C-alpha cells in the first residue's frame, strides 16, 4: 500500500505537468485560455506534492484505518486476473459487435468462473434478448451490431 500511496500523487503531478506543459509550450494557448489551468494545476500539484512527501515519510492521515493491508503477490495476481476479465468486454464488443460480443463474453466469463452450462447459457441468452429487444428494438439505440468486417 505504501508504494501505491506514493504512486497516485506522483501520477497526478506528472499528468498535470504534462497537460499544462502541453498547453503552454506546444499549443501556445493565450493567457485567457490558460488562466484556470495554471491556477488549478498549481493547487493540484501543491496538494499532491504535500501528500507525496507525507507518503514517502510513511505518515498516516487522521481518519484513516489503523493498518492498511500490504498487497501480497497472491492478491496482486488475483487482482490482475479480475481486472483483465472485466476489461475483456472491450475487445469482445469491438471485434464481435455488441449483439454477439456481449452474450459470448458473458458465456465465457460464467464458464471460466465455474458456473454450470445451464446457468451460463440461459443468462447469456437472456442478455442477448435484452440487448436486442430493449436496446435495439425498443430504445432504438444505434448499437454496432455486426462483428468487425461485416459492418
Amino acid at each position, binding site marked *: *500500500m505504501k508504494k*501505491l*500511496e506514493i*504512486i*497516485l*500523487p506522483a501520477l*497526478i503531478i506528472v499528468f*498535470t505537468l504534462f*497537460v499544462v506543459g*502541453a*498547453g503552454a509550450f506546444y*499549443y501556445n*494557448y*493565450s493567457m*485567457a*485560455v490558460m488562466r*484556470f*489551468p495554471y491556477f*488549478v*494545476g498549481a*493547487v*493540484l500539484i501543491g*496538494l*499532491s506534492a*504535500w*501528500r507525496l512527501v507525507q507518503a514517502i515519510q510513511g505518515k498516516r*492521515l*487522521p*481518519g*484513516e*484505518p489503523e493498518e492498511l493491508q500490504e498487497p501480497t503477490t497472491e492478491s496482486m495476481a*488475483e*487482482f490482475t486476473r*479480475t*481486472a483483465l*476479465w*472485466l*476489461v475483456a*468486454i*472491450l475487445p469482445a*464488443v469491438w471485434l464481435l459487435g*455488441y449483439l454477439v460480443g*456481449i452474450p459470448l*463474453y*458473458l458465456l465465457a*466469463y*460464467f464458464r471460466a*468462473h*465455474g*458456473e454450470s452450462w445451464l*446457468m451460463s447459457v440461459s*443468462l447469456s441468452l437472456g*442478455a442477448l434478448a435484452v*440487448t436486442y429487444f430493449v*436496446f435495439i428494438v425498443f*430504445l*432504438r*439505440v444505434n*448499437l*454496432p451490431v455486426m462483428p468487425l468486417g461485416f459492418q
Partner: protein
Amino acid sequence: MEYFTLLSEGFLRVMRPDIILIMLAAIPFGLIFGIVPGLSGLTALAILLPFIYGMEALPGLALLLASHAVIYTGGSVSAIILGIPGSPPNAATVVDGYPMAQQGRGGQAMGAALMASGLGGVFGVLVLVAILPVLEPIVLSFGSPETFFLALMGVTFIAIVGEGPMQKGLIAGALGIFLALFGYQPTTSVPRFHFGSDYLLDGFRIIPLALGLFAVPELIALSAKGKSVAQTGSISGVTFGQVMEGCAAVFKHWWLFIKSSTIGAVVGIVPGVGGETSPFVAYAAAKQSSRTASTYGQGNIEGVIAPESSNNAKEGGALVPTLAFGIPGSTGMALLLGGFLILGLEPGPEFLKEHMDLGVGLAMVVAIANVMAAIVMILLAKYIARLTYLRGHILAPLLLAIIVLGTYASKNNPMDVVYVFVFGALGYLMKELNYSRAPLILGFVLTNAIESYLHISLRSFGPTFFMRPISLIIIGLLVLGLVWPSISRRLRRGRGA
C-alpha cells in the same frame, strides 16, 4: 382566491384517465432508467421525445415530466445496495448509503432515500406553485454574478463532501476541477488540451466519469471475491419493517429535510449552476451543521436523506425558469423545452399568462409522479435488495454488460465505454487509498459555470460585480459556512466547560 381556483383547476386537469394511464407507464420507465447505471434522465427524455409527436399538450408533457421526475428515486436504490450511482447525482448518496447497506441497514437506507425523494419532489413542486405568481422578479434577480457565487459556494464544499481524510478529498476535488478544463474553453472557444482527439474536443463526460469512479471498483471487488454483496457485508434480508423505519427517519429529521429540499429547489431555479450540484451541496450543508458530523461517510442516515431530498426537489425548481422564460433550469429541462416546442407551445411570460392552468397541471404531474414512484419503490425495495444475494461471479459481469450498453446508449459513442475503464482505474486506486470520490464529481460539475460566469460577470459589471443584494447574501452564507464549524466547536466547548 383566484389563485386557489387556479390550483384546483390545474389539479382537475391532471385527473383524467388518459393522463393517469400515461403516468403509470412513464413512472416505471423512469425508475428503470434511474436504477440502471449509465442510463439517465437525459437518455430517457431523448428516447421518449419522438413519441410525443402528435400528442395533446398535457399528456405529452406528462409522459416526459413523470418519467424524468422519478429518475433519481430509482438511482438512489442502486447507489445504496450496489454502491453504484444509478445516475451521476446519486453519487452523493453512495457515500453514506452504501456503508449503511454493508452494515445490514440497507432497508433503512432505502426507506429514507425513497421517502426523502418522494417528499422532496413534492416540496419542490410546492415551492414552484407558491412562487408561480411572482416568478418573473425571482428569476430575474439571479444573474451571472449570482450564478458564479453559487458555483463558488459549491467549491467550498469540496472539503466537506465525502468520507476519508480531508487532505485527500481536496486532492480529489482539485483533480475533478482540472479534468473539467478539457475541451472547448467557454469564452475563447479554443478546444483546450484536445491532443488531436475528437472525443476530447468536448472534454470528458460525466457518465463515464461517475460510472468509472464508482462502478468499476465495486465490480472488481464483486468479481474478485466471487461472493455476493450480502456476503461481503453483513446484510441480512431486507424486511419491509426496516424500510418503513427508514421512511420514518425522514420525519424525525424534518428540519434537515426542509433545508435540503430548499437547497435543491434554489439550485434548480438558477439555470447556470447545473442541477448535478444540488445533492452534493445539500450533503455538505447537512454535514456542516450536524451534531453527528464525525460519523458521516460511515453510514449516517442523514447523509442519505439530505442528497436525496434535494435531488428530487430541484426538478420543481428547474421548472420555474423553464416555464417563466423558456430558459431551462437543467439539461433535462432543456430537452423538456424541446418537448414543449414539438407540441407547438412556447414557454415564456406570455405563455404563463395564457396557460397558467397548464403550468399548474405540470406541477401536479411532478408531485403525483414523485409520490407514486416512492410508493412503488418502497413496496419493491425488499425484492430489489435480493440482487445482493446474487453470486459476484454472476452479478459482476451482468452489471458490466448493462453499464457498457447504458453508457453507449447515453451518447452513441463507443469512446465513452472506453473511458469508463480509464476512470475505473483511477476510481479503484482512489478507493483503495481512501481518496473520497464524491468531491471529484462535485469539482467536475462546477468548473464550467465558475470559469464562464466569472468572466461574464467581470466583463458585464466590472470588478465590483459582487455589489448586488443577492450576491452579497450568497457571499455571507459562503463565509458563514466556512467559519461555522470552528464557531460551533467553540460554542460547544464553552457549553462543556
